[in-house]
């Protein structure tokens, strides 16, 4: 498998991060990183940015810490301590980088640079080299305010990961979830690593099953503010909230595109899945079968929908082709399969199975029903899988420590760990795409 990635001009990226407009110089070279799928971690030496002056040194320290913890979170890198003689005094010129030393410690890539102060702003210039050829593969400047050091570091990390893997990174993505820490179940949002958490709803009743639109502009969820479960769509920029004004109950929304969210509605009697516009108006009905139809999750192109149905008695996962109208059953293993989540790369669906002993475990399966893989086991209830933007990680809920808490793991089930240290129960996480 070859991953290739062009280096784009950094101008739009910096603007998209809402950093201050500043000097951006990116080289326009093309670079192709070749890695075998399933090969080990990427061996990287990351040097702390060079800095002169007390303020800049403090920035360099913080940028280094944020970059390291960010890259470490991805699980993609083996961060090798920089050899003492790795670079010359400036640390940012290819002539002064000691590639021999880098090769001898087993580094495949080297990243380093410098941070300076310009018109009160932080200006980070980074360079990444392929240590074998000694060739620069990324050269880019990131500018922002002093208060944006974390996002400046993450903008560099995003470029590095996307360059080396060809996939979107976690940097800039959000996780929305439910917590009962206030005494009521409300919706919260945080960065991919749990930082910057904020409460999104204050229904003081029940708010459940949050999910962000692909562009991050709208948050859809179910709440009981009206006394019964209704679909709410919150415009995050304007703060305006819309509800679906239909009788019956609404359950578990999933976005098809920025223009349509699907959810289960029962105003016609039976529970069916409908497409709803962000203004709360109904676009159309997509399922038609007696019994439960639930939990829509769409292929990246929006043409197919995975969902849960009780049409064959016990809950199983089905795939509906919205163009042909054909529905086929995906899961045959186990008698209680729910919570499908379609990977952003389109090839896999993660879901949960309730076992006979009461355990709930997370599985992945290819969309053609092949390659069934169990990711959790022997740890009570593991539920609500949701993919990272690059499809290489999964966030989920686990009760392995007693109360339900948020966990992350890689797509093969490795590296399972807590995401948030937060009181109360946390559940129903949903990972956004990388938000521009």
């Amino acid at each position: 498998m070859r991953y290739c990635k062009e280096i784009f001009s950094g101008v739009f990226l910096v603007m998209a991060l809402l950093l201050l407009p500043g000097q951006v110089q990116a080289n326009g070279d093309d670079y192709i990183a070749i890695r075998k799928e399933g090969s080990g971690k990427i061996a990287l030496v990351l040097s702390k940015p060079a800095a002169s002056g007390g303020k800049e040194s403090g920035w360099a320290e913080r940028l280094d810490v944020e970059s390291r913890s960010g890259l470490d979170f991805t699980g993609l890198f083996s961060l090798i301590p920089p050899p003492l003689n790795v670079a010359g005094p400036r640390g940012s010129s290819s002539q002064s980088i000691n590639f021999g030393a880098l090769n001898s410690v087993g580094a495949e890539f080297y990243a380093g640079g410098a941070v300076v102060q310009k018109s009160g702003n932080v200006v980070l210039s980074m360079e990444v080299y392929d240590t074998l050829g000694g060739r620069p593969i990324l050269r880019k400047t990131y500018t922002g305010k002093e208060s944006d050091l974390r996002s400046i570091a993450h903008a560099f990390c995003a470029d590095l990961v996307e360059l080396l893997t060809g996939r979107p990174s976690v940097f800039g993505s959000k996780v929305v979830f439910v917590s009962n820490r206030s005494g009521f179940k409300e919706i919260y949002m945080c960065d991919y690593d749990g930082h910057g958490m904020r409460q999104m709803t204050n229904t003081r009743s029940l708010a459940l099953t949050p999910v962000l639109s692909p562009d991050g502009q709208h948050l859809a969820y179910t709440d009981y503010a009206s006394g019964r479960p209704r679909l709410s769509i919150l415009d995050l920029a304007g703060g305006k909230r819309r509800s679906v004004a239909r009788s019956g109950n609404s359950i578990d929304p999933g976005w098809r595109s920025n223009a349509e969210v699907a959810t289960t509605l029962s105003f016609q009697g039976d529970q069916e899945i409908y497409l709803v516009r962000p203004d709360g108006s109904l676009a159309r009905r997509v399922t038609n079968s007696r019994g439960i139809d639930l939990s829509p999750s769409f292929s990246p192109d929006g043409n197919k929908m995975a969902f849960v149905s009780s049409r064959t008695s016990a809950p199983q996962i089905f795939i509906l082709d919205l163009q042909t109208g054909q529905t086929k059953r995906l899961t045959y293993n186990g008698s209680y399969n729910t919570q499908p989540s379609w990977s952003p790369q389109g090839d896999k669906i993660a879901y949960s199975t309730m076992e006979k002993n009461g355990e709930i475990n997370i599985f992945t399966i290819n969309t053609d029903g092949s390659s069934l893989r169990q990711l959790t086991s022997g740890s009570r209830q593991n539920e609500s899988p949701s993919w990272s933007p690059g499809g290489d990680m999964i966030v989920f809920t686990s009760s392995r420590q007693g109360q339900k808490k948020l966990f992350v793991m890689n797509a093969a089930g490795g590296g399972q760990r807590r995401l948030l240290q937060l009181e109360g129960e946390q559940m129903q996480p949903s990972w956004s795409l990388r938000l521009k």
Partner: protein
Amino acid sequence: MKRSMFLLKGLCVPAMLVLGACGCRTDVVAPEPVQPAPAPAAAPALGDVFYDFDQASIRMDAAEQLSQNAAWMQEKSSKRVVIEGHCDERGTSEYNMALGERRASMAKEYMVNLGVEPERMTTVSYGEERPFAAGSNEEAWALNRRAHFVEE
């Protein structure tokens, strides 16, 4: 305070029983009993119905209760009810939300078939969000798989 109330109640109840037994009508200088007298057994009372695991179909014992509920509604023809569907904690919460709604609507459908006007009943699902009984055992689970009837 609580203790003295308890003592009063303790004295009052046997006194009432004695007075009731002799059938005398005398002024009794004692507080009213805290508990209202139970309704005559013949009058229908609104009650909850219970379900099997992962099922929304009406069991035999539920059918009897639903007939009582229908009779209650026919007697009190101005009343409206909310039927809440509930599930036990097992399984996943979104599916339980759907199952809870099916439980409530199956109960409603049964009542409609017994002649209750559908406009007088609304259904809402709470899934596994509002359990009645605490605990992770079959006893608690059986109590939590219910359609709960609430007078509006």
